[in-house]
């Protein structure tokens, strides 16, 4: 399924503070991102998992379209949240086969080096200190473009590889002679 090169990136923002949600949403929108903002990690997982649940219920053609409509290209989450923290959310995403390649960014009002390292080691792309600035958000596009290019490359390569495997084995012996 090809992804249109010029379609908007969809960012899922997670923060229990409604002020910070409003801020991050505005910051992301000025960078032309499509934004969904939720107030908990649980809700975020529902949105991410919802895609998979609905895929099972719909037939293939409808499912692909649905998947594309709610596709999430990046998750940006607050670290300190009641219930499931941003770190827990990060781990759950990285442990999921279908979600692990979605870039995750962590935000926190507290500058704790061990916390930052832990998040980066767990696979977070970036760690932003709050209040998040426009200059921080400007760092996001490269990660998203990289992911998109990677996705597009993986599909034709998979098809190509299949073809190569079928033709190589018989040819290889012939060339040696």
């Amino acid at each position, binding site marked *: 399924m090809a992804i249109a090169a010029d379609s908007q990136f969809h960012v899922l923002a997670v923060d229990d*503070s409604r*002020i*910070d949600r*409003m*801020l991050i949403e*505005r910051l992301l929108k*000025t960078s032309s991102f499509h934004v969904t903002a939720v107030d908990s990690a649980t809700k975020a997982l529902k949105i991410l998992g919802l895609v998979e649940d609905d895929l099972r219920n719909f037939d293939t053609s409808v499912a692909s379209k649905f998947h594309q409509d709610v596709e999430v290209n990046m998750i940006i989450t607050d670290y300190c949240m009641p219930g499931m923290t941003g770190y827990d959310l990060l781990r759950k995403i990285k442990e999921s086969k279908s979600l692990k390649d979605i870039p995750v960014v962590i935000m926190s*009002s507290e500058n704790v080096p061990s916390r930052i390292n832990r998040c980066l080691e767990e696979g977070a792309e970036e760690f932003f200190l709050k209040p998040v600035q426009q200059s921080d958000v400007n760092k996001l596009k490269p990660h998203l473009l990289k992911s998109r290019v990677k996705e597009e490359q993986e599909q034709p390569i998979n098809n190509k590889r299949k073809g190569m495997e079928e033709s190589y084995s018989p040819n290889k012996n012939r060339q040696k002679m």
Partner: protein
Amino acid sequence: MDVMVQLQRQLFDYTASLFHEGFLDEQFNQLQQLQDESNPDFVVEVVTLFFEDAERLLNELTNALSQENIDFRRLDAHVHQLKGSSSSIGAQRIHTVCISFRNSCEEQNVEGCLKSLQQVKHEYSTVKSKLETLFKVRRSGPFLVRVLICNIEMTYGETDFGCRGVSVLGSVI
């Protein structure tokens, strides 16, 4: 229209003083930069949310500190929220008080907490009234501008106008 130029100058100076006196910091400028024609009320909206949140949190804090057995963890959680939201809108003085408030929570120092609560309430009401004045002046038409500039002067000092009331200025322009 020399008077209008002077009034605009006063508005500019008033805003600058809020920064100069540490009520607002650079983050408030960031908010203003996020405002544009497609989001003309962004700053007012965010700040209004902040007022609502802050008032709720101040009530919670007052409540928590009036208990017989003070739950310092709960107290700290509320202060943490207030610290975060004040930082997000650039309300610097409130943010600063919250830092020492959190230290008192950590030390389980009741007196320290009570003192911090009093301070943060004071800082909150001060910055609230200043921001409300700022918003009113920016949004209003010329007449209301004059009325409110007079208010500002009465609060923090006289200017060259010697503005003492609407009728005086009303007759000047």
